[in-house]
Protein backbone atom coordinates (compact mmCIF):
# COMPACT_ATOMS: atom_id res chain seq x y z
CA UNK A 1 0.00 0.00 0.00
CA UNK A 2 2.93 2.29 0.70
CA UNK A 3 4.51 1.26 -2.56
CA UNK A 4 5.43 3.91 -5.07
CA UNK A 5 6.52 1.11 -7.40
CA UNK A 6 2.98 0.58 -8.65
CA UNK A 7 3.21 3.81 -10.62
CA UNK A 8 6.43 2.85 -12.43
CA UNK A 9 4.72 1.19 -15.44
CA UNK A 10 2.60 4.29 -15.99
CA UNK A 11 5.52 6.68 -15.55
CA UNK A 12 7.44 4.75 -18.21
CA UNK A 13 4.32 4.71 -20.39
CA UNK A 14 3.93 8.50 -20.08
CA UNK A 15 7.61 8.98 -20.90
CA UNK A 16 7.34 7.00 -24.15
CA UNK A 17 3.83 7.90 -25.29
CA UNK A 18 3.27 11.41 -23.89
CA UNK A 19 6.59 13.16 -23.35
CA UNK A 20 8.61 11.83 -26.31
CA UNK A 21 5.86 12.58 -28.88
CA UNK A 22 5.59 16.17 -27.64
CA UNK A 23 9.38 16.56 -27.75
CA UNK A 24 9.28 15.15 -31.29
CA UNK A 25 6.79 17.84 -32.31
CA UNK A 26 9.17 20.41 -30.84
CA UNK A 27 12.10 19.00 -32.84
CA UNK A 28 10.19 18.52 -36.09
CA UNK A 29 8.96 22.11 -35.94
CA UNK A 30 12.56 23.29 -36.38
CA UNK A 31 13.40 21.12 -39.40
CA UNK A 32 12.98 21.98 -43.06
CA UNK A 33 11.84 19.42 -45.65
CA UNK A 34 15.41 18.10 -45.97
CA UNK A 35 15.68 17.45 -42.25
CA UNK A 36 18.11 20.30 -41.49
CA UNK A 37 17.67 22.80 -38.67
CA UNK A 38 15.62 25.70 -39.94
CA UNK A 39 13.08 28.32 -38.94
CA UNK A 40 11.31 27.82 -42.24
CA UNK A 41 8.35 25.87 -40.73
CA UNK A 42 7.53 28.82 -38.48
CA UNK A 43 7.85 31.20 -41.42
CA UNK A 44 5.35 29.06 -43.32
CA UNK A 45 3.13 28.70 -40.25
CA UNK A 46 3.06 32.49 -40.01
CA UNK A 47 1.21 32.48 -43.32
CA UNK A 48 -1.78 30.92 -41.55
CA UNK A 49 -2.21 33.74 -39.05
CA UNK A 50 -5.52 34.70 -40.69
CA UNK A 51 -6.88 31.14 -40.37
CA UNK A 52 -5.69 31.03 -36.77
CA UNK A 53 -7.51 34.26 -35.94
CA UNK A 54 -10.67 33.11 -37.68
CA UNK A 55 -10.57 29.84 -35.70
CA UNK A 56 -10.25 31.72 -32.44
CA UNK A 57 -13.11 34.01 -33.48
CA UNK A 58 -15.41 31.07 -34.35
CA UNK A 59 -14.46 29.33 -31.09
CA UNK A 60 -15.07 32.48 -29.06
CA UNK A 61 -18.45 33.09 -30.69
CA UNK A 62 -19.51 29.46 -30.17
CA UNK A 63 -18.41 29.56 -26.53
CA UNK A 64 -20.38 32.76 -25.86
CA UNK A 65 -23.54 31.41 -27.53
CA UNK A 66 -23.19 28.16 -25.57
CA UNK A 67 -22.88 30.15 -22.36
CA UNK A 68 -25.94 32.31 -23.11
CA UNK A 69 -28.04 29.25 -23.98
CA UNK A 70 -26.73 26.94 -21.26
CA UNK A 71 -26.78 29.21 -18.22
CA UNK A 72 -30.58 29.68 -18.04
CA UNK A 73 -31.04 26.01 -18.88
CA UNK A 74 -28.79 24.89 -16.01
CA UNK A 75 -30.53 27.32 -13.64
CA UNK A 76 -34.01 26.10 -14.63
CA UNK A 77 -32.86 22.50 -14.19
CA UNK A 78 -31.94 23.14 -10.55
CA UNK A 79 -35.40 24.60 -9.92
CA UNK A 80 -37.19 21.41 -10.97
CA UNK A 81 -38.26 18.46 -8.85
CA UNK A 82 -35.34 16.05 -8.32
CA UNK A 83 -36.96 13.29 -10.37
CA UNK A 84 -37.69 15.55 -13.36
CA UNK A 85 -34.15 16.97 -13.03
CA UNK A 86 -32.74 13.50 -13.68
CA UNK A 87 -35.05 12.88 -16.61
CA UNK A 88 -34.41 16.23 -18.32
CA UNK A 89 -30.69 15.87 -17.72
CA UNK A 90 -30.79 12.47 -19.41
CA UNK A 91 -32.77 13.88 -22.34
CA UNK A 92 -30.15 16.63 -22.76
CA UNK A 93 -27.28 14.12 -22.65
CA UNK A 94 -28.55 11.50 -25.09
CA UNK A 95 -27.63 13.34 -28.34
CA UNK A 96 -24.08 13.73 -27.02
CA UNK A 97 -23.66 9.97 -27.08
CA UNK A 98 -24.14 9.94 -30.84
CA UNK A 99 -20.98 9.73 -32.87
CA UNK A 100 -19.32 13.13 -33.43
CA UNK A 101 -19.33 12.80 -37.23
CA UNK A 102 -22.93 11.66 -37.37
CA UNK A 103 -24.06 14.69 -35.37
CA UNK A 104 -22.33 17.03 -37.81
CA UNK A 105 -23.64 15.08 -40.78
CA UNK A 106 -27.17 15.42 -39.37
CA UNK A 107 -26.79 19.19 -39.68
CA UNK A 108 -25.55 18.81 -43.25
CA UNK A 109 -28.80 16.96 -44.10
CA UNK A 110 -30.93 19.50 -42.27
CA UNK A 111 -29.35 22.62 -43.75
CA UNK A 112 -28.45 21.56 -47.29
CA UNK A 113 -30.02 23.13 -50.37
CA UNK A 114 -33.42 21.50 -50.99
CA UNK A 115 -33.10 19.94 -47.54
CA UNK A 116 -35.89 20.03 -44.93
CA UNK A 117 -35.21 23.57 -43.71
CA UNK A 118 -34.81 24.95 -47.21
CA UNK A 119 -38.01 23.25 -48.46
CA UNK A 120 -40.03 24.40 -45.46
CA UNK A 121 -38.93 28.01 -45.74
CA UNK A 122 -39.30 27.98 -49.53
CA UNK A 123 -42.99 27.28 -49.04
CA UNK A 124 -43.15 30.50 -47.06
CA UNK A 125 -41.42 32.23 -49.92
CA UNK A 126 -38.01 32.55 -48.26
CA UNK A 127 -35.12 31.43 -50.42
CA UNK A 128 -31.60 31.33 -49.05
CA UNK A 129 -28.63 29.07 -48.61
CA UNK A 130 -28.15 27.86 -45.06
CA UNK A 131 -24.97 25.89 -45.45
CA UNK A 132 -21.46 26.86 -46.46
CA UNK A 133 -21.10 29.93 -44.25
CA UNK A 134 -19.67 30.90 -40.88
CA UNK A 135 -23.10 30.88 -39.22
CA UNK A 136 -23.58 27.21 -40.08
CA UNK A 137 -20.15 26.43 -38.61
CA UNK A 138 -21.02 28.23 -35.37
CA UNK A 139 -24.41 26.47 -35.17
CA UNK A 140 -22.72 23.10 -35.65
CA UNK A 141 -20.12 23.96 -33.03
CA UNK A 142 -22.75 25.07 -30.50
CA UNK A 143 -24.64 21.84 -31.16
CA UNK A 144 -21.50 19.75 -30.59
CA UNK A 145 -20.41 21.38 -27.35
CA UNK A 146 -23.56 22.75 -25.65
CA UNK A 147 -23.80 19.86 -23.13
CA UNK A 148 -20.19 20.55 -22.08
CA UNK A 149 -21.39 23.98 -20.97
CA UNK A 150 -24.66 22.88 -19.33
CA UNK A 151 -23.19 20.08 -17.23
CA UNK A 152 -20.48 21.88 -15.20
CA UNK A 153 -22.74 24.89 -14.55
CA UNK A 154 -25.60 22.62 -13.49
CA UNK A 155 -23.31 20.53 -11.26
CA UNK A 156 -21.94 23.58 -9.44
CA UNK A 157 -25.37 25.20 -9.11
CA UNK A 158 -27.03 22.09 -7.69
CA UNK A 159 -24.32 21.86 -5.02
CA UNK A 160 -25.13 25.34 -3.68
CA UNK A 161 -26.14 25.04 -0.04
CA UNK A 162 -29.92 25.56 0.24
CA UNK A 163 -29.34 27.19 3.64
CA UNK A 164 -27.58 30.12 1.97
CA UNK A 165 -30.59 30.76 -0.24
CA UNK A 166 -33.03 30.51 2.67
CA UNK A 167 -30.85 32.85 4.71
CA UNK A 168 -30.93 35.39 1.87
CA UNK A 169 -34.70 35.05 1.64
CA UNK A 170 -35.10 35.43 5.40
CA UNK A 171 -33.02 38.57 5.22
CA UNK A 172 -35.51 40.04 2.77
CA UNK A 173 -34.12 39.22 -0.66
CA UNK A 174 -36.58 38.56 -3.44
CA UNK A 175 -35.86 35.93 -6.12
CA UNK A 176 -33.90 38.35 -8.31
CA UNK A 177 -31.70 39.43 -5.42
CA UNK A 178 -31.11 35.83 -4.36
CA UNK A 179 -29.97 35.05 -7.88
CA UNK A 180 -27.73 38.11 -8.14
CA UNK A 181 -26.12 37.88 -4.74
CA UNK A 182 -26.00 34.14 -4.01
CA UNK A 183 -26.54 31.87 -6.99
CA UNK A 184 -24.64 33.83 -9.65
CA UNK A 185 -21.40 34.38 -7.68
CA UNK A 186 -21.36 30.76 -6.52
CA UNK A 187 -21.90 29.45 -10.06
CA UNK A 188 -18.78 31.16 -11.46
CA UNK A 189 -16.50 28.08 -11.09
CA UNK A 190 -18.96 26.09 -13.21
CA UNK A 191 -19.02 28.84 -15.83
CA UNK A 192 -15.20 28.88 -15.93
CA UNK A 193 -14.91 25.15 -16.46
CA UNK A 194 -17.75 25.25 -19.01
CA UNK A 195 -15.91 27.93 -20.99
CA UNK A 196 -12.74 25.83 -20.88
CA UNK A 197 -14.53 22.66 -21.94
CA UNK A 198 -16.17 24.37 -24.93
CA UNK A 199 -13.42 26.75 -26.07
CA UNK A 200 -10.49 24.31 -26.14
CA UNK A 201 -12.11 21.67 -28.35
CA UNK A 202 -13.86 24.17 -30.60
CA UNK A 203 -10.66 26.17 -31.23
CA UNK A 204 -8.79 23.04 -32.28
CA UNK A 205 -11.51 21.01 -33.96
CA UNK A 206 -11.51 19.98 -37.56
CA UNK A 207 -14.19 18.64 -39.93
CA UNK A 208 -17.01 20.84 -38.58
CA UNK A 209 -15.94 23.67 -40.87
CA UNK A 210 -15.20 21.26 -43.73
CA UNK A 211 -18.76 19.96 -43.69
CA UNK A 212 -20.72 23.07 -42.74
CA UNK A 213 -18.49 26.01 -43.71
CA UNK A 214 -17.61 27.78 -46.93
CA UNK A 215 -14.17 27.90 -48.49
CA UNK A 216 -13.01 30.78 -46.28
CA UNK A 217 -14.24 29.13 -43.06
CA UNK A 218 -11.33 26.69 -42.92
CA UNK A 219 -10.05 26.31 -39.33
CA UNK A 220 -6.59 25.77 -37.94
CA UNK A 221 -7.35 22.09 -37.17
CA UNK A 222 -8.21 21.52 -40.84
CA UNK A 223 -4.92 23.14 -41.85
CA UNK A 224 -2.92 20.87 -39.51
CA UNK A 225 -4.79 17.82 -40.81
CA UNK A 226 -4.23 18.75 -44.46
CA UNK A 227 -0.61 19.84 -44.13
CA UNK A 228 0.71 17.16 -41.81
CA UNK A 229 0.59 14.34 -44.35
CA UNK A 230 2.93 16.24 -46.71
CA UNK A 231 4.85 18.78 -44.64
CA UNK A 232 5.44 17.57 -41.08
CA UNK A 233 7.66 20.53 -40.21
CA UNK A 234 5.04 23.21 -40.82
CA UNK A 235 2.32 20.96 -39.35
CA UNK A 236 4.38 20.58 -36.18
CA UNK A 237 5.09 24.31 -35.99
CA UNK A 238 1.36 25.13 -36.18
CA UNK A 239 0.56 22.37 -33.64
CA UNK A 240 3.20 23.75 -31.29
CA UNK A 241 1.78 27.28 -31.51
CA UNK A 242 -1.76 25.96 -31.00
CA UNK A 243 -0.71 23.91 -27.97
CA UNK A 244 1.14 26.81 -26.35
CA UNK A 245 -1.83 29.08 -26.96
CA UNK A 246 -4.22 26.56 -25.34
CA UNK A 247 -1.91 26.15 -22.32
CA UNK A 248 -1.71 29.91 -21.80
CA UNK A 249 -5.50 30.06 -22.05
CA UNK A 250 -5.87 27.25 -19.46
CA UNK A 251 -3.47 28.93 -17.06
CA UNK A 252 -5.41 32.20 -17.38
CA UNK A 253 -8.72 30.43 -16.76
CA UNK A 254 -7.18 28.67 -13.77
CA UNK A 255 -6.33 32.02 -12.24
CA UNK A 256 -10.07 32.85 -12.27
CA UNK A 257 -11.50 29.52 -11.17
CA UNK A 258 -10.42 26.94 -8.67
CA UNK A 259 -8.50 23.95 -9.91
CA UNK A 260 -10.89 21.26 -8.72
CA UNK A 261 -13.73 22.45 -10.95
CA UNK A 262 -11.70 22.02 -14.14
CA UNK A 263 -11.08 18.33 -13.60
Amino acid sequence: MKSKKLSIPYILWMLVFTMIPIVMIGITAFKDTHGRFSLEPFAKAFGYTGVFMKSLWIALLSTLICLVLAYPLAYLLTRMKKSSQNTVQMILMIPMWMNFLLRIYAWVILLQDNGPLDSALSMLGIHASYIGNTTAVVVGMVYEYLPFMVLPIYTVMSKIDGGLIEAAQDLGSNNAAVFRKVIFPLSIPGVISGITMVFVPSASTFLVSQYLGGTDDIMIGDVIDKIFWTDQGTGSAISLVLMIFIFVFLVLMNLFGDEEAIA
Partner: protein
Amino acid sequence: MRKNKIGIVSKIYIALMIVFLYAPIAVMIFMSFNSGNTTVWKGFSLKWYGELFKSKVIMNALGNTLIIAVLASLFATILGTAAAIGINNFRGKKRAIIQNVSNLPIISPDIVMGVSLMLLFSFLGMIFHFEMGFGTVLISHICFCVPFVVLNVMPRLRRMDQSIYDAALDLGCNQWQAFYKVVIHELMPGIFSGMLMSFTYSIDDFVITHFTQGARFNNLSTEIYAMLRRKIPPTINALSALLFLAIIIIMVLINIYERRAEKKAA
Protein backbone atom coordinates in the same frame (compact mmCIF):
# COMPACT_ATOMS: atom_id res chain seq x y z
CA MET B 1 -33.02 25.17 -2.46
CA ARG B 2 -36.69 26.08 -2.36
CA LYS B 3 -38.43 24.40 -5.26
CA ASN B 4 -41.14 26.50 -6.78
CA LYS B 5 -42.84 25.49 -9.97
CA ILE B 6 -41.16 26.91 -13.02
CA GLY B 7 -43.25 29.15 -15.24
CA ILE B 8 -44.62 28.59 -18.72
CA VAL B 9 -41.87 30.69 -20.38
CA SER B 10 -39.21 28.53 -18.76
CA LYS B 11 -40.95 25.39 -19.92
CA ILE B 12 -41.06 26.69 -23.49
CA TYR B 13 -37.35 27.52 -23.28
CA ILE B 14 -36.46 24.00 -22.14
CA ALA B 15 -38.68 22.54 -24.87
CA LEU B 16 -36.96 24.68 -27.53
CA MET B 17 -33.53 23.51 -26.39
CA ILE B 18 -34.67 19.91 -26.60
CA VAL B 19 -36.01 20.54 -30.13
CA PHE B 20 -32.64 22.08 -31.07
CA LEU B 21 -30.81 19.00 -29.79
CA TYR B 22 -33.10 16.44 -31.39
CA ALA B 23 -34.28 18.00 -34.68
CA PRO B 24 -31.17 17.09 -36.73
CA ILE B 25 -31.21 13.52 -35.45
CA ALA B 26 -34.96 13.21 -36.12
CA VAL B 27 -34.48 14.40 -39.70
CA MET B 28 -31.67 11.92 -40.21
CA ILE B 29 -33.76 9.03 -38.87
CA PHE B 30 -36.68 10.09 -41.07
CA MET B 31 -34.41 10.12 -44.12
CA SER B 32 -33.16 6.62 -43.33
CA PHE B 33 -36.58 5.32 -44.47
CA ASN B 34 -36.39 7.17 -47.79
CA SER B 35 -36.40 4.86 -50.80
CA GLY B 36 -34.48 7.39 -52.93
CA ASN B 37 -30.84 8.14 -52.36
CA THR B 38 -31.12 11.92 -52.63
CA THR B 39 -32.55 14.32 -50.09
CA VAL B 40 -35.95 14.34 -51.79
CA TRP B 41 -38.54 12.05 -50.24
CA LYS B 42 -39.45 9.24 -52.63
CA GLY B 43 -41.49 6.92 -50.40
CA PHE B 44 -41.01 4.53 -47.51
CA SER B 45 -38.45 1.79 -47.74
CA LEU B 46 -36.20 -0.31 -45.53
CA LYS B 47 -33.64 -0.91 -48.25
CA TRP B 48 -30.86 1.14 -46.58
CA TYR B 49 -31.13 -1.05 -43.49
CA GLY B 50 -30.67 -4.09 -45.69
CA GLU B 51 -27.64 -2.49 -47.34
CA LEU B 52 -26.25 -1.63 -43.93
CA PHE B 53 -26.29 -5.22 -42.68
CA LYS B 54 -24.85 -6.44 -45.95
CA SER B 55 -21.97 -3.96 -45.74
CA LYS B 56 -18.89 -5.87 -44.60
CA VAL B 57 -16.82 -2.70 -44.11
CA ILE B 58 -19.30 -1.15 -41.66
CA MET B 59 -19.73 -4.35 -39.66
CA ASN B 60 -15.96 -4.80 -39.62
CA ALA B 61 -15.48 -1.19 -38.42
CA LEU B 62 -18.13 -1.67 -35.73
CA GLY B 63 -16.30 -4.78 -34.55
CA ASN B 64 -12.98 -2.94 -34.47
CA THR B 65 -14.50 -0.08 -32.46
CA LEU B 66 -15.86 -2.45 -29.84
CA ILE B 67 -12.67 -4.55 -29.57
CA ILE B 68 -10.50 -1.44 -29.22
CA ALA B 69 -12.87 0.08 -26.65
CA VAL B 70 -12.97 -3.09 -24.52
CA LEU B 71 -9.19 -3.69 -24.64
CA ALA B 72 -8.24 -0.03 -24.19
CA SER B 73 -10.56 0.56 -21.23
CA LEU B 74 -9.51 -2.70 -19.58
CA PHE B 75 -5.80 -2.05 -19.97
CA ALA B 76 -6.15 1.63 -19.04
CA THR B 77 -8.07 0.68 -15.90
CA ILE B 78 -5.32 -1.67 -14.69
CA LEU B 79 -2.50 0.74 -15.57
CA GLY B 80 -4.36 3.76 -14.19
CA THR B 81 -5.46 2.19 -10.91
CA ALA B 82 -1.94 0.95 -10.16
CA ALA B 83 -0.59 4.36 -11.13
CA ALA B 84 -3.04 6.22 -8.87
CA ILE B 85 -2.09 4.08 -5.85
CA GLY B 86 1.60 4.66 -6.57
CA ILE B 87 1.23 8.39 -7.21
CA ASN B 88 -0.73 8.74 -3.97
CA ASN B 89 2.45 7.81 -2.07
CA PHE B 90 4.50 10.57 -3.67
CA ARG B 91 4.61 13.94 -1.97
CA GLY B 92 5.24 17.51 -2.97
CA LYS B 93 6.93 18.53 -6.19
CA LYS B 94 7.43 15.03 -7.61
CA ARG B 95 3.74 14.28 -7.21
CA ALA B 96 2.71 17.55 -8.85
CA ILE B 97 4.97 16.87 -11.85
CA ILE B 98 3.68 13.32 -12.33
CA GLN B 99 0.07 14.43 -12.09
CA ASN B 100 0.53 17.32 -14.50
CA VAL B 101 2.21 15.10 -17.10
CA SER B 102 -0.58 12.59 -16.61
CA ASN B 103 -3.17 15.28 -17.37
CA LEU B 104 -1.42 16.37 -20.57
CA PRO B 105 -3.45 14.12 -22.89
CA ILE B 106 -6.68 15.53 -21.43
CA ILE B 107 -5.80 19.21 -21.67
CA SER B 108 -3.86 19.26 -24.91
CA PRO B 109 -6.01 19.47 -28.06
CA ASP B 110 -6.89 16.07 -29.56
CA ILE B 111 -5.37 16.97 -32.89
CA VAL B 112 -1.99 17.83 -31.33
CA MET B 113 -1.96 14.54 -29.46
CA GLY B 114 -2.94 12.75 -32.67
CA VAL B 115 -0.15 14.22 -34.79
CA SER B 116 2.43 13.78 -32.01
CA LEU B 117 1.63 10.06 -31.72
CA MET B 118 1.73 9.78 -35.50
CA LEU B 119 5.25 11.27 -35.47
CA LEU B 120 6.33 8.76 -32.81
CA PHE B 121 4.80 5.74 -34.56
CA SER B 122 6.14 6.60 -38.00
CA PHE B 123 9.60 7.11 -36.46
CA LEU B 124 9.46 3.82 -34.53
CA GLY B 125 7.96 2.12 -37.59
CA MET B 126 10.98 3.07 -39.66
CA ILE B 127 13.34 1.60 -37.06
CA PHE B 128 11.44 -1.57 -36.19
CA HIS B 129 9.70 -2.07 -39.55
CA PHE B 130 6.05 -2.08 -38.61
CA GLU B 131 3.04 -0.29 -40.04
CA MET B 132 0.42 1.64 -38.14
CA GLY B 133 -2.81 -0.26 -37.55
CA PHE B 134 -4.66 -2.08 -34.78
CA GLY B 135 -1.73 -1.99 -32.35
CA THR B 136 -0.93 1.70 -32.71
CA VAL B 137 -4.63 2.65 -32.41
CA LEU B 138 -4.94 0.54 -29.26
CA ILE B 139 -1.85 2.15 -27.69
CA SER B 140 -3.12 5.63 -28.58
CA HIS B 141 -6.53 4.94 -27.06
CA ILE B 142 -4.91 3.67 -23.86
CA CYS B 143 -2.95 6.96 -23.80
CA PHE B 144 -6.01 9.16 -23.55
CA CYS B 145 -7.97 6.71 -21.34
CA VAL B 146 -5.49 6.27 -18.46
CA PRO B 147 -5.70 9.91 -17.25
CA PHE B 148 -9.47 9.54 -16.80
CA VAL B 149 -8.96 6.44 -14.66
CA VAL B 150 -6.32 8.21 -12.55
CA LEU B 151 -8.63 11.23 -12.11
CA ASN B 152 -11.53 9.03 -11.00
CA VAL B 153 -9.53 6.82 -8.62
CA MET B 154 -7.50 9.61 -6.97
CA PRO B 155 -10.32 11.21 -4.91
CA ARG B 156 -11.36 7.79 -3.56
CA LEU B 157 -7.78 7.09 -2.49
CA ARG B 158 -7.54 10.40 -0.68
CA ARG B 159 -10.74 9.66 1.24
CA MET B 160 -9.72 6.10 2.10
CA ASP B 161 -8.86 5.32 5.70
CA GLN B 162 -5.36 3.83 5.87
CA SER B 163 -6.21 2.09 9.16
CA ILE B 164 -8.69 -0.28 7.48
CA TYR B 165 -5.81 -1.71 5.48
CA ASP B 166 -3.70 -2.02 8.63
CA ALA B 167 -6.63 -3.67 10.43
CA ALA B 168 -6.90 -6.26 7.66
CA LEU B 169 -3.20 -7.04 8.10
CA ASP B 170 -3.63 -7.34 11.89
CA LEU B 171 -6.58 -9.69 11.39
CA GLY B 172 -4.36 -12.10 9.48
CA CYS B 173 -4.63 -11.09 5.83
CA ASN B 174 -1.42 -11.23 3.89
CA GLN B 175 -0.49 -8.12 1.87
CA TRP B 176 -2.18 -9.34 -1.31
CA GLN B 177 -5.40 -10.31 0.47
CA ALA B 178 -5.51 -6.96 2.25
CA PHE B 179 -4.82 -5.17 -1.00
CA TYR B 180 -7.48 -7.04 -2.89
CA LYS B 181 -10.16 -7.19 -0.19
CA VAL B 182 -9.77 -3.71 1.24
CA VAL B 183 -8.03 -1.33 -1.14
CA ILE B 184 -9.55 -2.49 -4.43
CA HIS B 185 -12.95 -2.87 -2.76
CA GLU B 186 -12.84 0.72 -1.47
CA LEU B 187 -11.68 2.08 -4.83
CA MET B 188 -14.22 0.12 -6.91
CA PRO B 189 -16.71 2.94 -7.65
CA GLY B 190 -13.86 5.16 -8.89
CA ILE B 191 -12.30 2.35 -10.89
CA PHE B 192 -15.67 1.58 -12.45
CA SER B 193 -16.50 5.14 -13.48
CA GLY B 194 -12.96 5.53 -14.86
CA MET B 195 -13.45 2.41 -16.95
CA LEU B 196 -16.86 3.58 -18.18
CA MET B 197 -15.47 6.97 -19.19
CA SER B 198 -12.56 5.30 -20.99
CA PHE B 199 -14.96 3.03 -22.85
CA THR B 200 -17.22 5.86 -24.05
CA TYR B 201 -14.33 8.10 -25.08
CA SER B 202 -12.74 5.25 -26.98
CA ILE B 203 -15.98 4.42 -28.83
CA ASP B 204 -16.51 8.05 -29.79
CA ASP B 205 -12.95 8.86 -30.82
CA PHE B 206 -12.28 10.06 -34.32
CA VAL B 207 -9.29 12.41 -34.22
CA ILE B 208 -6.67 10.21 -32.51
CA THR B 209 -7.67 7.17 -34.57
CA HIS B 210 -7.55 9.23 -37.77
CA PHE B 211 -3.85 9.97 -37.24
CA THR B 212 -2.70 6.57 -35.94
CA GLN B 213 -4.81 4.11 -37.96
CA GLY B 214 -2.41 3.53 -40.86
CA ALA B 215 -3.65 2.50 -44.29
CA ARG B 216 -5.87 -0.48 -43.61
CA PHE B 217 -7.43 -0.22 -40.15
CA ASN B 218 -10.75 1.59 -39.61
CA ASN B 219 -12.99 2.11 -36.64
CA LEU B 220 -16.59 3.26 -36.98
CA SER B 221 -15.73 6.99 -36.89
CA THR B 222 -13.00 6.79 -39.51
CA GLU B 223 -15.16 4.52 -41.68
CA ILE B 224 -18.00 7.08 -41.53
CA TYR B 225 -15.43 9.74 -42.45
CA ALA B 226 -14.33 7.69 -45.46
CA MET B 227 -17.96 7.07 -46.49
CA LEU B 228 -18.78 10.77 -46.33
CA ARG B 229 -15.79 11.42 -48.59
CA ARG B 230 -17.04 8.90 -51.13
CA LYS B 231 -20.53 10.41 -50.84
CA ILE B 232 -22.54 7.25 -50.21
CA PRO B 233 -24.50 8.46 -47.21
CA PRO B 234 -28.01 6.84 -47.21
CA THR B 235 -26.72 3.80 -45.33
CA ILE B 236 -25.21 6.22 -42.82
CA ASN B 237 -28.71 7.46 -42.01
CA ALA B 238 -29.78 3.90 -41.26
CA LEU B 239 -26.66 3.39 -39.15
CA SER B 240 -27.40 6.58 -37.19
CA ALA B 241 -30.97 5.51 -36.54
CA LEU B 242 -29.87 2.15 -35.15
CA LEU B 243 -27.08 3.66 -33.04
CA PHE B 244 -29.54 6.19 -31.66
CA LEU B 245 -31.97 3.43 -30.75
CA ALA B 246 -29.17 1.52 -28.99
CA ILE B 247 -28.14 4.63 -27.04
CA ILE B 248 -31.73 5.30 -25.91
CA ILE B 249 -32.18 1.70 -24.74
CA ILE B 250 -28.89 1.78 -22.80
CA MET B 251 -29.65 5.16 -21.19
CA VAL B 252 -33.17 4.12 -20.16
CA LEU B 253 -31.84 0.88 -18.67
CA ILE B 254 -29.17 2.79 -16.72
CA ASN B 255 -31.81 5.21 -15.48
CA ILE B 256 -34.14 2.43 -14.31
CA TYR B 257 -31.24 0.69 -12.59
CA GLU B 258 -30.20 3.91 -10.80
CA ARG B 259 -33.74 4.61 -9.64
CA ARG B 260 -34.04 1.11 -8.21
CA ALA B 261 -30.74 1.55 -6.42
CA GLU B 262 -31.95 4.89 -5.01
CA LYS B 263 -35.18 3.34 -3.78
CA LYS B 264 -33.26 0.55 -2.10
CA ALA B 265 -31.02 3.07 -0.40
CA ALA B 266 -34.04 5.07 0.77
